[in-house]
């Protein structure tokens, strides 16, 4: 299937079709995860009618894969009405992202009946005391796991999403083992992203270099750790490649109708309350600017040893101040894989060295403080 999906993605790219969109239905949430990048207040979410209209526009524009996320999607009282419209009327391939603590047998059956492709549930640890300390909701792990069982028993595809951070690093093997025991899939992500308002304090929760190094050499995660950690030979062809799919075949829409290239790329490109979705996608100057960037256009990164293999996220680079610049979190990953500092890391080191200038100062003579001619 992956080859066919690649072909379809390539075709969508040529036709300028937004193949995949993440739509956050709400930023409200019933958990208070310590690393979350969202502001959970409701500043005027789209109404049911507005969302249905947007879904029609998305279908018209060619969107095939629709990821409904949040916040917690189940907090919308019209969640099933929206889901039913997306599936039965508009035949999207729908994926859900949820903490699942409001999903019981009845909800699981409805999700099955509506033909949802997959449900991704956030799980931070297999140990309740650790998971619940991240969500700040006592009993949340048990409820999420119960929901996963209800969904699995309906024959649905369930995926544990395991964001790995300092407090949970030692538990990722436990989460993977739990998923395997329950017959579920699991993914891990070692990147904590800044808050949407730019606050970077949550980045302190990221795992340290030693843990990242360990992660990339865990043979249960990578097929061949040695091979995946070598530096690729410089490849000039890759300079013409796209940095990622953001703005090319994918985009993100907030609960307020703002359209961004990606959920991790908070560059506003338009609002569906004021413009048609397809017009934003095709004609937004900012979306087209993102779309115009090739690897050869990146500052710093084009001279980097890791350029061919780097997982550089343009959204994280944007949040660092330059969408054509490096993403430090990905520099750290490249360094953890290979032990070789990125061009960005070396540049920062040089800049830091220039900031601290130490010169020897001649020792004061006996006449110090007095005029030389005195």
């Amino acid at each position, binding site marked *: *299937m992956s080859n*066919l*999906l690649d*072909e*379809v993605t390539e*075709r*969508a790219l040529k*036709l300028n*079709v937004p*193949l995949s969109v993440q739509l956050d239905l709400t930023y409200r949430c019933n958990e208070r995860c310590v690393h979350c990048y969202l502001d959970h207040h409701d500043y005027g979410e789209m109404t049911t009618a507005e969302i249905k209209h947007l*879904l*029609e526009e998305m*279908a*018209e524009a*060619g*969107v*095939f*894969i629709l990821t409904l996320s949040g916040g917690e999607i189940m907090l919308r009282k019209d969640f099933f009405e929206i889901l039913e419209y997306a*599936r*039965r*009327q*508009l*035949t*999207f*391939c*729908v994926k859900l992202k949820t903490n699942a603590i409001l999903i019981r047998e009845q909800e699981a059956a409805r999700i099955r009946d509506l*033909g949802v*492709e*997959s449900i991704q549930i956030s799980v931070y640890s297999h140990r309740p005391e650790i998971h619940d300390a991240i969500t700040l909701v006592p009993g949340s792990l048990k409820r999420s796991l119960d929901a996963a069982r209800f969904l699995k028993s309906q024959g649905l*595809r369930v995926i544990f999403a395991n964001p790995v951070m300092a407090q949970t690093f030692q538990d990722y093997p436990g989460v993977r083992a739990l998923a395997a025991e329950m017959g579920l899939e699991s993914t891990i992500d070692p990147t904590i992203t800044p808050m949407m308002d730019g606050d970077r304090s949550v980045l302190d929760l990221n795992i340290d270099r030693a843990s990242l190094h360990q992660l990339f050499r865990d043979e249960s995660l990578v097929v061949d750790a040695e091979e995946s950690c070598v530096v690729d030979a410089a490849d000039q062809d890759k300079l013409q490649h796209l940095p990622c799919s953001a703005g090319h075949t994918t985009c993100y829409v907030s609960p307020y109708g703002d359209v961004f290239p990606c959920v991790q790329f908070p560059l506003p490109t338009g609002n569906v309350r004021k413009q048609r979705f397809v017009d934003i996608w095709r004609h937004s100057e900012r979306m087209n600017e993102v779309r115009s960037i090739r690897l050869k256009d990146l500052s710093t990164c084009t001279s980097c040893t890791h350029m061919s293999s780097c997982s550089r996220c343009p959204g994280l680079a944007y949040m660092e101040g330059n969408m054509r610049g490096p993403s430090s979190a990905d520099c750290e990953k490249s360094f953890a894989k290979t032990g070789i500092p990125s061009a960005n890391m070396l540049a920062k080191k040089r800049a830091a060295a220039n900031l601290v200038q130490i010169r020897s100062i001649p020792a004061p003579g006996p006449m110090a403080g007095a005029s030389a001619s005195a």
Partner: protein
Amino acid sequence: MSKLYVARSPRVAARSLGGEMMIMSGRDSTLFTLNETASILWQAADGTTPLEEIVEQKICSEFEVEPSEALQDAETVARELAGHHILQISEQPMPQPSPASGASR
């Protein structure tokens, strides 16, 4: 010979991309793409129009092909898609709610 009716499976996801359908099976998330003629057949599969009529009106009118040959090909394609559970086949009409226009663009 009895008439054959075809209907899109309600559990699949579907969208047209440059005139060719992308279909994802609701059973196992397998992705299929249909060529232009199979896409025409898929889009016309409303459960109530006989396959023979679909072939005459939608395929023979667009392509230079013998109706009997086109019908034989269409039946083969329909049975193959039914084997993947993304299309339903019956000798009786299968009325069903039609999706909004955006679904088949």
